């Protein structure tokens, strides 16, 4: 059986920003609003030390597709809206989701409101129940009347909302999620099932992101995990799990160091 995981090689990562933005183009996630980032992929940055020995690193983040996923545990719907696929993906079924946000509270990598919690990121975001998603392309304001467009007009003319809507189908999730439910990274299962790489992986110019089956000892992910000492995140504050610590058994692994020079900080 497959057990999907991702390895991110921090030495190769240049914190270029391509993966997170590519994910937005793939999955049509809305712009940040009301304390929700809608960034299924995002980054956390860490700075320490004093000039000139200051150290800085970036860690690309996404859903960890945990094996002991509290988000799944707490989902009150039967069958669960947040559930594990047999391939280890933490999947979300849009239709069954009732928008209770228990998953968002339970996930150690998520925040109910990133502004209030001063959180760097949140794996799970919630589509507010009071307004339709992608408000940017529903706005009718024209900056120069009759001369410049409006969000709504663009969406209408383009024939989709958002206008750059990358349409796809999947039995569990829509390519744009409705209001009143949560959403998060689903390891691009609509691509994986077709034999393609998750889009953030396919778009990383550094090839820092590697996706595959950890149960297959010959896969690239297994090889990297064996070769280097892999680390996983403990929470959305950038802390890593210690050697014996299992946490929620996350399946996004980080190998090597973002910076080449030894630490002086």
């Amino acid at each position, binding site marked *: 059986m497959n057990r999907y995981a991702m390895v991110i090689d921090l030495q190769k990562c240049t914190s270029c920003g391509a993966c997170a933005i590519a994910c937005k183009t793939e999955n049509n996630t809305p712009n940040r609003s009301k304390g929700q980032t809608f960034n299924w992929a995002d980054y956390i940055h860490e700075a320490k030390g004093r000039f000139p020995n200051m150290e800085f690193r970036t860690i690309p983040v996404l859903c960890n597709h945990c094996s002991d996923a509290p988000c799944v545990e707490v989902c009150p719907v*039967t069958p669960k809206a947040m559930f594990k696929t047999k391939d280890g993906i933490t999947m979300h079924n849009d239709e069954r989701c009732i928008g209770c946000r228990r998953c968002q509270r339970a996930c150690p990598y998520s925040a109910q409101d990133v502004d209030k919690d001063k959180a760097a990121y949140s794996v799970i975001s919630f589509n507010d129940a009071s307004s339709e998603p992608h408000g940017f392309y529903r706005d009718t304001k024209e900056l120069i009347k009759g001369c410049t467009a409006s969000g709504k007009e*663009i969406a209408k003319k383009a024939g989709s909302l958002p206008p750059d809507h990358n349409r796809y189908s999947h039995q569990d999730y829509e390519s744009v999620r409705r209001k009143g439910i949560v959403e998060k990274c689903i390891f691009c*299962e609509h691509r994986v099932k077709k034999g393609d790489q998750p889009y953030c992986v396919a778009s990383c*110019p550094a090839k820092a992101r590697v996706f595959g089956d950890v149960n297959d000892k010959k896969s690239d992910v297994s090889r990297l995990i064996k070769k280097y000492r892999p680390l996983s995140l403990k929470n959305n504050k950038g802390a890593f799990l210690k050697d014996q610590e299992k946490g929620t058994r996350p399946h996004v692994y980080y190998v090597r160091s973002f910076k080449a020079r030894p630490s002086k900080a």
Partner: protein
Amino acid sequence: MKIKRRDFLKASVAAGAAVAANGPTLNAFAMGQKGGAIGETAGDWKPSSCQGCTTWCPVEIFVQNGRAVKVRGNQYSKQNDGFVCSKGHISLQQLYDPDRVKVPMKRTNLKKGRGIDPKFVPISWDEALNTIADRMMELRKTGDPEKFLLMRGRYTYMRDTLYSALPKVFGSPNSISHSSICAEADKFGSYFTEGLWDYRDYDLSHSKYVVLWGMDPISSNRMIPASIKRFGDVLDNATVVAVDPRLSTAAAKAHEWLPVLPGTDGALASAIAHVILKEGLWHKEFVGDFKDGKNRFRTGKTVAASTFAEKETNGVVAWWNIELKNKTPGWAAKITGVPSKKITAVARGLGKAAPHAIVWLGPGAAMHVRGGYTAMAIHALNGLLGSIDNKGGVMPSAKVPVKKIPKYSKYQDELAKKHSKKQKIDQRGYLTFPALKKGKSGGGVVTNNVAQAILDKDPNEIKVAIGYMNNFVFSSTGTGRWEKALEKIPFFAHLTTNASEMTQYADIVLPCAITKYEKLGFLKTKANGYATCTLVQPVVKPLWDVKMDETEIPWLLAEKLKERGFSNLYDYYKNEFKDPETGKKPANGREFTEYSLKIMTAPLWDGKKDVGGDTIKGWEEFKKRGMWNSSHYKYKKRWGGKFGKDSVDKKTGKTKTKGTKTHKFEFYSETLKEALGKHAKKHKTTVNGVLKACNYTARDERAFVPHYEPPYRRGSKKRYPFVFIDYKSKLSREGRSQNTPWFQEFKHVDPGDQGWQDLLKINPKDAKRLKIKDGDTVKVTSTVASIVVTAKLWEGIRPGTVSKAYGQGHWAYGRVAAENYDAAVPRGGNNNTIMPADYERLSGSTARNGGFTGVRIQKV
């Protein structure tokens, strides 16, 4: 918990999947659980090119049902290996920007100024073009067509039909490019050493030592995806050193970060050269050696030139004697703030790795008042290391054998011939503006001086101006001068995609097709040893009534001028731009665009001559592939005295040189000596007189060798105690992506920055003294203006220095870029507002780096 019925129906299928994953499936759609198809809706990857930065990537755009939805690199590309950077993706939000100008507009409020509503109203293309043509014709009637000014911004190589031909056939010398506002001083460094007025290519894959100097290749500069791809491996295979006053991402990742004091880079370069020579680490195969093999380079000691036999270089001994002999690491340490041990270590590391070593000269080290010689000093290190044209070193681009536009001289009437030869408005070639592009006095553009020249009406008044894809009011330093200058121009037409800052001063606005998605043209680019020709193609149908700025609009304008009795431009376009395949004359702007593109790119696809690289069979195939890769650049191509080439002008009988005078890599630049000499003669002064007029301290022989010049600063240390550093954001598409939510959201991928913010990085020590806390609002004041931004306490910047990314501070452009478009309130502050207009005069460049701007910081 209550569960809805339809959920219950789906319950049974939630677990097991019907189709095994991993591994390509052959059927078009994998079957989903509810019997529907899984996967992406059908679409096509269509080739075009990205112009988000000067990397100019060949790309492909995924188009679903006529909509652009995703971006990737062109899968054929050896320049970006099929990948785009973050900016490549961001561009989708520029295409679908709610604030795109969708129709031509006319100003109805005659008063012009920052914050004054132009009261634009929509008009037809016909009315807009008639108005422009009328205003232009007035100038021909009064016999002063030189009062017409055309300002170019981001261009494709279709530029010549508009930028070169239109003003010249009309009768004006005034086609002004944007080129010198961000990087020409960089080219000065390579031209006056190796005869190359161009940006270099860097062979990262094979290098053993890489010094990134005043730039971060994974964030900006000219080979971003290629650098991102290789950077992780370069860290394994080579030593990487970042010379930068602020901690860039490259500096954060590198083996060594040298936070040099702004503007002192030349001292560091001289000291490295000193050590390389003193310790005998230069590459003998390139530079040569002492005749008896004994190293005579000893600190403080002059060397007799006759004892050294040079190979591919000129004047290594002279350089030592004039500049280097006393430039020890100890000397440089005091000036640069870089410990002498580190300087020595870098010199030794480079020497050991030579010739597979890269000293990557970036604009940060060159684009300042005294940056011309710094650029030479840094680039000259590549000469010492023999890495020029070498594996793992530094190379020029391989050739892209495209053609020029057909000659237009026979369409110039007497008035045009005479007036188009007049002095250009930018004052290039004046005593204080040598602008020595390719060694010619007044050969290059002094873009940013145009504002002053317009205000001073020197050399003449400008009455009618057109600008395209540019935003000088935002992108040039000393923005205040541009605001005033544009207020003064009686008639200004702006060709643009958005109502930018510059548009606010326009009388007529023409909405343009956006590059990458709606335009047709071509670009030349390079990386990894390969040169590339890549097509910009319309991959989607524009949503608005927009036209292509470089070809369609000039065609339409030519028609309008013809209606008014001046048909020369139209005749030129019509007669000279025939389809090279069918011989058909263009009937409209679209055909004119396609035929001119075919004419210029024909050698790549017409099969008439073997041009090397990819074989492309015909025009249709070229459009389908979207690009051409050259063969790999031939290492050591110019070794053997081929850094310059002489030819005799048949008419005058005079010898002309392309490249360096000596045909060698010049440490003692005979090429610069001649160029400065000619400029001095033109102004009846001496070379010393020229240097003085250009704010350089060097006199006599020092003028001809790479050397250290103390930094030049605007604002006294007492009144303006901090030095301001400007840097490029990874997400800034040349200052145009700020209206996209994705730029704002992910701004934090620049070290020290945060989403939706414009942060001034200040060292916590300084902040403490000024009682500034993280997130405080601060006013940054220079000798010319103030901006109000947010403070970020940051250890990645040296005490005494503050830094901020270029890009924010838009007070127009759109709803996201500006805090409040209607009230002209900027989001953050524009660096160019506080940086005074000053120049690296020898190249005509705008000074924007090297810490030339003194500022004071106050909490507000």
